[in-house]
């Protein structure tokens, strides 16, 4: 196998006359975790569907696992595991039956499937739920089952559309831990997300999308260094306009989001001195994160 898992060149997609993906190019290397980051409607799911050959680009070329898509997408899908944005498990089946039925779609024999089910249940921490009906599982368990189901064909590549949206923090951390395990075992992952923290923790590289266009690409650290490069001070609880005029000379840039000021200051001490003695202010200094990059790039905050 070549060491390129996914390659997009100049991919464009229109729905009617609405441009949803606009001349997008990127490459994902084998073994890499690549993130597609963007607000609602940025085109993340559409890109995921194009990788699977479920919707056809209007222009551009897509190669997945060395095969042209959509022309050879059926063959490519044999080596792909999919976690869709919305769970589509069979609710009337048990956990085990869901895996059995799905394995058959890949042409596996019942005996073969039964041989891998214990490993998958263990991976998804669902051993005790093997014979429970899926309709009765919690959201986190369903998501883990979807992940286990995506692994039934032992895929090289995982395409995951918002794997942790709608989960509580505990369930989310469990999924992240499982995904890191998969990456350590050599799988390639492309995931879409709204969560900066998710992208920062998991992705080797990511691509920030806005209305179908790539507005930045790189490793989380490189992006943070490139676009922010200094500590961030969050100020909450004062009159934003008044505070801005006070500290403007001492900061590189100020971003207002709701009632919070985000100040990007090479020397945070200068800002602190200006604010000293003011009552009712909450000040937090922290290292920059991807969220700051996103704010800077898109000028608006993503859902949290």
């Amino acid at each position: 196998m070549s060491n390129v898992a996914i390659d997009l060149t100049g991919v464009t997609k229109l729905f009617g006359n609405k441009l949803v993906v606009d001349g997008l190019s990127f490459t994902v290397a084998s073994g890499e975790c690549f993130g597609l980051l963007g607000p609602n409607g940025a085109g993340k799911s559409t890109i995921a569907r194009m990788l699977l050959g479920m919707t056809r680009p209007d222009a551009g070329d897509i190669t997945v696992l060395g095969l042209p898509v959509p022309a050879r997408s059926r063959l490519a899908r044999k080596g792909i595991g999919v976690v869709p944005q919305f769970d589509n498990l069979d609710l009337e089946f048990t956990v085990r039956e869901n895996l059995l039925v799905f394995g058959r779609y890949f042409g596996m024999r019942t005996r073969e499937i039964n041989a891998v089910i214990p490993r998958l249940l263990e991976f998804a921490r669902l051993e005790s739920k093997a014979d429970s009906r899926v309709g009765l599982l919690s959201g986190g368990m369903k998501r883990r089952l979807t992940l286990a189901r995506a692994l039934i064909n032992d895929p090289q590549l995982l395409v995951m559309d918002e794997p942790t949206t709608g989960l509580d923090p505990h369930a989310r951390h469990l999924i992240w831990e499982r995904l890191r395990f998969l990456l350590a075992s050599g799988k390639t992952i492309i995931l879409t997300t709204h969560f900066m923290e998710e992208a920062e923790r998991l992705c080797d590289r990511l691509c920030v999308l806005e209305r179908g266009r790539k507005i930045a690409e790189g490793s989380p650290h490189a992006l943070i260094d490139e676009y922010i490069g200094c500590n961030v001070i969050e100020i909450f609880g004062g009159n934003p306009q008044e505070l801005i005029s006070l500290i403007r000379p001492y900061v590189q840039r100020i971003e207002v989001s709701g009632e919070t000021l985000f100040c990007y200051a090479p020397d945070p001490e200068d800002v602190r001195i200006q604010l000293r003695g003011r009552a009712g202010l909450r000040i937090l200094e922290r290292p920059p994160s991807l969220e700051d990059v996103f704010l800077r790039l898109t000028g608006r905050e993503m859902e949290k």
Partner: protein
Amino acid sequence: MGERLAAALPANAWNWIAVWRRNHLAWKKVAFASMLGTLADPMIYLFGLGTGLGLLVGRIEGASYIAFLAAGMVATSAMTASTFETIYAVFGRMRDQGTWEAILHTQLTLGDIVLGELTWAATKAFLAGTTIAIVAAALGYAAWTSVLYVLPVIALTGFAFASLAMLVIALAPSYHYFIFYQTLVITPMLFLSGAVFPVGQLPGVFQQIAAFSPLANSIDLIRPVMLGRLGDNVGLHIGALCMFAVLPFFLSAGLFHRRLMR
């Protein structure tokens, strides 16, 4: 164009079996209720109309009315079983439950899915029609050997109606549209195709229209055999049913591709 065709057609001759087995597994959990649901209607027709009307009608085409009706009900039960499986259960799996979407993430094509669903609906039709035929034979309204001969026709009838219903669900935006198919196509077909009374009594135009319906073709194959006679135009009727099974299948697969893979 070629690759679109490849996505809409079955990838091979066996992929569909996985879809059939999925449906079979789901059905096994509710088999009793499901069988009761599919068989209640034709049984009520058979015994209600058969015994009630039978007294008034006397003999038809040289047989008792209930024996005449039994043959009609074998075909009708196959028609309704595969029609209802398709317009309700398959539509749900295609649009609301995400079952098809999940399958399309695997190595199956849309054509594999449609073929699997079709074969499953035909299986249910086969089960329903066969049960009615066995009941009729057990009660002495048909010879046991005749049941063997009508089995393939029952299966073919199931395929034809599943295929037609597949076309309907490929086009229907929501469940509300199925009532049109039911009241404007299925129910009139029941009365125009000779299931409950001989079509000879209808005005000529109706007779000619009805002769083309898949139900009429099915009944014309099943009834003579069950009443111990030789049928006419057997090849023609089989050909017509095959056409109803095959053409809508390809057409619906194409329409599903347009609907789901935009």
